[in-house]
């Protein structure tokens, strides 16, 4: 399979402390990867580096063969941890915003996602509940035809029905030409839509592998393997 993201010996320091240390990771086309780790393990920093928002100190990262920058930004769709849509916007404005901003934005696909998420264009951002806002942000992110989708904590502060809906949307709407990276600590709920996992612990990759292979070898769920890793 074709490699989309290639990370080699990547390190990142904040002040003098290593946030990421000697990260090596390859992500292939058509694969959903879970980036799992405790709070402060470096998951979000890794996502920011892949998106091009942050720069690594040492090591190499390539997205479809190119270093993160202007050219890769147009290939990477990033669902950030925090909302960046303005309060004054209506959903219609938010869609327009994405349409102007991203060439790969597919209004039709986004419309389908919005229907699935039970959102209407007439809603105002300010009046959306947390779950609705997250559903909207996910519709906008997955509404792009990117080659990499980065979903940072997509289930933060969200009730179980919305969570199931979001999981379904991720699984049904990502296209096989792209790859998805999801950070989360709600592993039990998402593990069945993950093909691969990378466990991150204190800035380093503690374990990577194929989910089904890991279940087979250890006779355990991904969630249990994660737990045992941190005991």
């Amino acid at each position, binding site marked *: 399979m074709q490699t989309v993201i290639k990370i080699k010996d990547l390190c990142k320091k904040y002040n003098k402390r290593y946030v990421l240390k000697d990260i090596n990771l390859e992500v292939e086309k058509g694969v*959903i990867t879970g980036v799992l780790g405790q709070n402060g393990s470096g998951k979000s920093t890794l996502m920011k580096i892949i998106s091009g928002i942050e720069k690594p100190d040492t090591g190499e990262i390539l997205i479809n063969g190119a270093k993160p920058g202007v050219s890769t930004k147009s290939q990477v769709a990033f669902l950030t941890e925090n909302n960046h849509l303005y309060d004054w916007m209506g959903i219609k404005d938010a869609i327009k915003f994405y349409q102007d901003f991203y060439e790969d934005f597919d209004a039709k696909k986004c419309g389908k996602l919005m229907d699935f998420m039970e959102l209407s264009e007439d809603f105002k951002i300010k009046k959306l509940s947390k779950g609705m806002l997250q559903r909207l942000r996910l519709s906008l992110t997955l509404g792009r035809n990117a080659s990499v989708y980065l979903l940072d904590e997509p289930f933060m502060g969200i009730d179980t029905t919305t969570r199931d809906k979001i999981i*379904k949307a991720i*699984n049904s709407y990502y296209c*096989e030409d792209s790859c998805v990276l999801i950070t989360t600590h709600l592993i039990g709920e998402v*593990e*069945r839509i993950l093909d691969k996992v990378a466990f991150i612990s204190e800035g380093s990759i503690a374990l990577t592998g194929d989910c*089904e292979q890991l*279940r087979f070898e250890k006779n355990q769920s991904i969630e249990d393997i994660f737990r045992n890793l941190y005991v």
Partner: protein
Amino acid sequence: MDLKFDNNTPIYIQIMNWIKEQIVSNKFLAGSRLPSVRDMSEQFNVTSNTIQRVLRELEIEGIIYTQRGIGVFITEDMDKITNLRLNMSKQLVEKFIGSMRLLGFSNDEIIDVVIRITKAGLTDADSNKDKGSM
């Protein structure tokens, strides 16, 4: 398709077993077409890679076959299906016997219990039917 997954065992094996059950119990008929990868992936809410693995393994076991560009079909080889049925029952019975031995039952006792309970089950069902018709 209602299937509760146990995250402790590979999901593709659980889906494989589920499909085998459908075939053995005649819910999926010999020679009929399986839903598409996309459909199954949505219905089971697992990735298409998992479904592809299911199909690959079932094909190796000769339970399904692919017709390029048309779809995936359940084997028409009735011997294969009979074998599958026997194998699945064997697995269940072996597991059951294993548990019974752990409880200290001998082979004769196990057979005795099975006969008694299946007969009791039948008479229960019969008496229920009688009640129903009255």
